[in-house]
């Protein structure tokens, strides 16, 4: 079990340069057709936030603040990481079967494919977080020491998403239907994480089984400068336990099936 995890880690380590270059090309190839190119990475999420603010903030909550925080900054602080999570889970699941045609050698380390697809999306995420810092400052939540939590949170998100990607990319290559299932699941999970609403303490206990809950609340606490992350350290331990289990399982599945990936295209 540890052997396969170690194999994946050493593969990633020796292909770091490859991953960074391929991520650059991935971004370039995605944006090459549009006039506004990279600008869409900001416009689309901002439009979405506008709609959610209107529907949930005015429509459902009729403008009431949450724990003394106005709804809009509260929403932005939580939803920014969700944009990353949702796109990462669906794109990395697709990554292996859509990119393997580019791979011209069996000896190519296939575990780098989900890694570079994830990294390309992470670049976008960092840019969006940068914009969000400005927005939050405009709302009256300036940056401070608490913003440093971003480094930890970004690392935590990458670790979880990559571990998941190892599993989903292998299984989706074999059974394409999983792609559709994942998409619907992500849409559902969006409402089962506290992005738009605050669950009661009892309900929160159940919803916290989902590790994405930790990321959303963690980012929110980082943007708003609360001490949620520090006081919920036990939940943090649970999160990392999940990450390790997923990574071990993912490495095993990946190594078990990768020889056959090319046969399923």
């Amino acid at each position, binding site marked *: 079990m540890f052997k396969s995890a170690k194999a994946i880690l050493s593969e990633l380590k020796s292909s770091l340069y490859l991953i960074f270059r391929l991520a650059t090309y991935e971004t370039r190839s995605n944006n090459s057709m549009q006039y506004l190119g990279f600008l869409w990475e900001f416009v689309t999420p901002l439009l979405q936030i506008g709609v959610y603010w209107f529907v949930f903030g005015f429509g459902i909550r009729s403008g009431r603040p949450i724990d003394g925080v106005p709804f809009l900054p509260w929403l932005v602080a939580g939803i920014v990481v969700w944009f990353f999570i949702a796109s990462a889970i669906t794109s990395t699941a697709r990554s292996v079967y859509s990119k393997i045609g*580019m791979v011209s*050698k069996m000896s190519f380390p296939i575990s780098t494919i989900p890694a570079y697809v994830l990294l390309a999306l992470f670049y976008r995420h960092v840019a969006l977080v940068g914009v969000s810092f400005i927005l939050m400052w405009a709302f009256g939540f300036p940056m401070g020491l608490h913003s440093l939590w971003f480094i930890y949170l970004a690392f935590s998100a990458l670790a979880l998403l990559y571990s998941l990607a190892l599993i989903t990319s292998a299984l989706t290559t074999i059974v394409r239907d999983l792609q559709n299932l994942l998409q619907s699941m992500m849409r559902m999970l969006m409402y089962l994480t506290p992005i738009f609403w605050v669950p009661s303490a009892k309900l929160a206990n159940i919803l916290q089984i989902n590790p994405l809950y930790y990321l959303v609340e963690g980012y929110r606490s980082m943007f708003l400068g609360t001490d949620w992350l520090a006081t919920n350290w036990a939940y943090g331990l649970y999160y990392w336990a999940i990450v390790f289990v997923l990574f071990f399982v993912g490495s095993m599945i990946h190594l078990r099936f990768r020889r056959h990936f090319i046969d399923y295209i």
Partner: protein
Amino acid sequence: MYQVKFENVSKRYTLYNKQSDKLKEIFFSKAGGKQFYALRNVTFEVPPGEVVGIIGINGSGKSTMSNLLADVMPPTHGKIELHGKTALIAISSGLNGNLTGLENIELKGLMLGMTKQEIIDLTPAIIEFADIGDFINQPVKTYSSGMKSRLGFAISINVDPDILVIDEALSVGDQTFTDKCLAKMNEFKDRGKTIFFISHSVSQVRQFCTLGLWLEFGEVREYGPVDEVVREYNKFLKWFRNLSKEQQDSFKADKLKRRTTVVDATELGETYILPPLTEEQLQTRHSSVAVSNEA
């Protein structure tokens, strides 16, 4: 001494009746559906410095052979040994249409496992060989098919492979480019590298190759000096054409039955990439050939 060795190599595809049969095979490793052998018990050895022409009618397994040689996929059963790097040149050479020619050179280099410096060093030679002018900075999707294959060819041949596999790629270029390629391949040949040449053009094979490998419905029908193999192949073509429609069909059905008979092997096949042959080993090859010529 050999550069390439195939030992009882088979490549099997399963013709599934339903999608769910596929899942059954993965999880219970029991093969459902019909088995079809693209290649069946193929065994041969190629000494360095030879040019092997692979011939055979449509559906005889030539493309599967080129994929196995280029290490694109593993064999189902059997053992493949390759000394050194292989490069595959095919018409669809896996270029990314959204990226420019220059970007594709780097991307392809990375995919082939080259380092940053190696790619930088090779780029001028590739651009020169491809000879597509300012198009090198344009997206590949704007290229004509000839330009695409020229770029693909230029990349593959300049990564300095020890084994070169050419799959019908020469048919798209004009005469000057074909000549350039042939010159480059002759240079390869002289340096003791091994080339596999897959083509429907029997005359091109005879002109350029030293050995012939004739595949017939997934099996090696004949392997030896190119003239002999081509002669036999032409004889076969003539004989086959003269058969009546029914005789042709029954001949094919007969072969198909062989092709769907399950090979008695359980171990999974593997491709081994061995270190390139040393100068010394290449030298011994020359002397042994000389001796065998005298004999």
